């Protein structure tokens, strides 16, 4: 663990900007980010104050890590250092909401679930079902490009965000987009900042387009004896007139983590408590459909005998909650698990899952995966065996073997793995998008590299 202390004079200046009570100098253990602890935790109360903090940091070469609900801070590389953890949690108000316009404007520090409840009163929502929405903030979800199974049809944050306000590294408060659903005035900064992991600017306010919430849904789980059969079924579905809201593939190892379980006493120990609810050889495709009784009846009819379980109501909600929290469940059970997020072409989903199943045992890891079968966004988990657990190097070798087997044009970032292993490989990996161009964009907007230094790809 490493700490760098900011000089007392900087602390005083920070307090002058945000108020004495909003600079924290103790109890930093809860802010441990990949072994790095911030010297000061600052919570500005306005976008202008965020700008002032950044201006100060930029002048003094202090490294800033923007933070919301701290649900995804462990994703990414090991920060070089963190002088200031800039918390957006005081920017937590609904600034504007007119249900008739189907748009909402909210502070970046508002927990997502809180916004969702406000929208729920008018039977509307922002269709995002990423994990930990009670704590995860809107700014954090945007910055990490977080998504869940709903990404299949609705896309993710980049597709809902119609306007954004942010503070740049040199302290300017600027914006992109606006409050209307169609707008091409100026560059699309919403796309640029979504998934930028706080490395370009600190998001302070977000405008979303919102959607009417479906009134009725039903979930159909279909089981298959092999990955091939599951993939053939998926392809048939994609070509059919059916338009399910979610389409998840669940690997044989995954159901173990799709249920409520007590965290294991020894979190490194892989030991299923009970025989798993389904035979461990089955692949599943789980569909969620929305519509009237008529529409849902047609799903049942067309899916026919492939359906092994139909879920509605609380049981259905519970299953989708588990799917959203798959990786969290894995990490709660296995401190040393590794989790990857993939970006694949539709036809690369099968080969990627096959690669996972084949590579994992070579490194004493147990594979499990869930993910969006129609968009190629999979969550791949690898759990260490309790006997002969892998070394840090073996994680690195496993990742490189796995990446090597992915079809061309794929990318896979390691979201979570033991800290020791992070020193042995690049967690972000290769990407089809020009990395030099990404770096040029970073330099243009944060030339001194004060934002999240060392964490992201740029």
């Amino acid at each position, binding site marked *: 663990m490493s700490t760098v202390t900011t000089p007392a004079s900087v602390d005083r200046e920070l307090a002058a900007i945000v108020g004495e009570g909003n600079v924290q100098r103790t109890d930093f253990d809860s802010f441990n980010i990949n072994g790095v602890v911030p010297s000061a935790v600052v919570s500005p109360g306005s976008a202008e104050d965020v700008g002032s903090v950044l201006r100060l940091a930029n002048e003094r070469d202090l490294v800033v890590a923007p933070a919301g609900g701290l649900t995804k801070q462990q994703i990414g590389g090991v920060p070089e250092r963190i002088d200031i953890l800039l918390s957006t949690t005081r920017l937590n108000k609904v600034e504007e909401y007119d249900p008739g*316009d189907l748009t909402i404007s909210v502070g970046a520090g508002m927990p997502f679930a809180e916004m969702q409840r406000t929208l729920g009163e008018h039977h509307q929502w922002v269709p995002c079902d990423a994990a930990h929405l009670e704590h995860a903030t809107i700014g954090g979800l945007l910055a990490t490009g977080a998504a869940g199974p709903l990404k299949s049809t609705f896309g993710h944050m*980049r597709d809902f965000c119609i306007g954004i306000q942010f503070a740049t590294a040199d302290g300017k408060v600027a914006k992109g987009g606006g409050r*209307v*659903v169609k707008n091409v005035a*100026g*560059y699309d900064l919403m796309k640029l900042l979504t998934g930028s992991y706080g490395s370009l600017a600190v998001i302070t306010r977000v405008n979303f387009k919102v959607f009417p919430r479906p009134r009725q849904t039903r979930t159909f789980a279909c089981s298959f004896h092999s990955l091939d059969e599951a993939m053939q079924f998926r392809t048939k579905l994609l070509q059919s007139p059916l338009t399910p809201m979610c389409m998840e593939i669940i690997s044989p190892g995954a159901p173990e983590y799709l249920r409520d379980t007590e965290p294991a006493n020894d979190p490194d120990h892989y030991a299923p408590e009970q025989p798993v609810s389904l035979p461990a050889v089955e692949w599943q495709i789980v569909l969620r459909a929305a519509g009237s009784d*008529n529409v849902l009846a047609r799903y049942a009819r067309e899916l026919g005998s492939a359906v092994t379980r139909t879920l509605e109501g609380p049981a259905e909600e519970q299953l989708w909650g588990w799917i959203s929290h798959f990786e969290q469940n894995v990490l709660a059970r296995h401190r040393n698990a590794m989790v990857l997020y993939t*970006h694949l072409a539709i036809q690369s989903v099968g080969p990627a899952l096959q690669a996972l199943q084949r590579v994992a045992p070579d490194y004493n890891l147990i594979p499990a995966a869930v993910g969006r079968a129609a968009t190629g966004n999979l969550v791949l988990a690898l759990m260490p065996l309790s006997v002969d657990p892998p070394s840090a190097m073996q994680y690195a070798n496993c990742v490189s073997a796995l990446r090597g087997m992915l079809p061309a044009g794929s990318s896979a970032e390691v979201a979570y793995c033991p800290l020791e292993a992070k020193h042995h490989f690049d967690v972000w990996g290769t990407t*089809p998008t020009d990395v030099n161009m990404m770096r040029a964009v970073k330099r243009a907007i944060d030339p001194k590299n004060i934002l999240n230094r060392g964490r992201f790809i740029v």
Partner: protein
Amino acid sequence: MDSSIIRQLRKIAGKDAVLDRPEELMLYEYDAGVDKHRPGAVVFPQTTQQVSQVMKLASDKKIPVVPRGAGTGLSGGAIARREAIVLSLAKMNKILEIDVPNQRAVVQPGVVNLELSNATTKYGYYYAPDPSSQKACTIGGNVAENSGGPHTLALGVTVNHVTGLEAVLPDGRVIELGGKAQDSTGLDLTGFFVGSEGTMGVVTRITVKLTKLPEHVTTLLAIYNTVEDAANTVVAITQSGVTPAALEMLDGWMVRCVEANVHAGYPEDAAAVLLIELEGMRETVNEQAEAVSAVCMQQKAREVRHAKDEKQRQLLWLGRKTAFGAVGRVSPSYYTQDGVIPRTKVPYTLAEIARISKHYGLIIGNVFHAGDGNLHPLILFDSRDPQQTENSRKAAKEIMACCLKFGGSITGEHGVGLEKMGLMTAMFTEDDLEVMVRLRNAFNPESILNPQKMIPDLRYCREITGPLPKAKVEPVAGVPV
């Protein structure tokens, strides 16, 4: 243009692939918008490598380059000045790959929008964004402008359908952004690039999503005795939980204009009509059609007609799609606006437009994408009458001011280009624009590519690019689209 430059361009792209005679250049003076300038030369590269060589030459000699697709843009984005080279992508017009299993197509930038849908319907797929000019406009141009269209209400605009790009930077470097996957690790530069109006790079290859053809489509025509009732229906439909594939509005004047032209079957005594399209699974569409009809009737529609068959459906759409042409028949000149307002403000804004119309004594027709609040008021004037010309310009300005007052935007799909550059400061602060300039400079540091477009003349821009002439919002005679 310097004859040695022309020689070098010919060496790169071929003898017949460069135009420099005045009579040839005249054809490249304008797009479908209001500005007009004659470029120094036009070059038609056929490969990415040639585009790269042209850019390298231009960079070395500091000659501005303006990329151009079909020239159907409405904001002057493809207009070049005397000293500039127009880089036409018209000869890079091949569909490189149709990858049905991955639901993607890979195309060159000069492929015409509708051509791609025509090539893919046989597989049960199409390319969803459908600008009104889709029979002529190119996908490269669509990427530059982030084009919309009537059917983007439910399915999203161009940026939602592009997953990969190959582009040439001003210094000639070729970059790859994204690919066939929905997204990729790292910054979403693909999404950021779309809509950059040719100020970041020249797109030379595009990977787009193909959308499954819907099982069922139905079109409704709702007829109203007042504009307010039609406008209120728009709000009521979006609140009802139904997202139509398209939700278009024509006011009474437009209805009569269109009827006189194509006889689409619109009632000539209506004050406004809504054209509502629903698509998807048969059961869903049928239920939604009933729900939408009920909403229309609640909002005092005089009548709701369902297209009985495909022929009737096409006829209803013909009215909408030929609306601009129909106006051209009755007025010597008109000025197309493109403003966006929050949906609930549609009734107020239309009332305000009616007031502006009366105040200046000019007819303003309204035909627009009501579902997403994207207005296209058409201001009719006689360009031979200087007073009318001046008034049309003032009316346009007041309409834009009205959009901005309601928290709207100065452009929903036509782009900023030259036309709206002067209005950018009404929507963005100097700091906002400075961030955009800094980001542009990461791609296009010397503003060789499409200079003096999109981002207006600010102190900061001046420091980087030298003094820039002011943008003008000047209506001229002509028939766009």
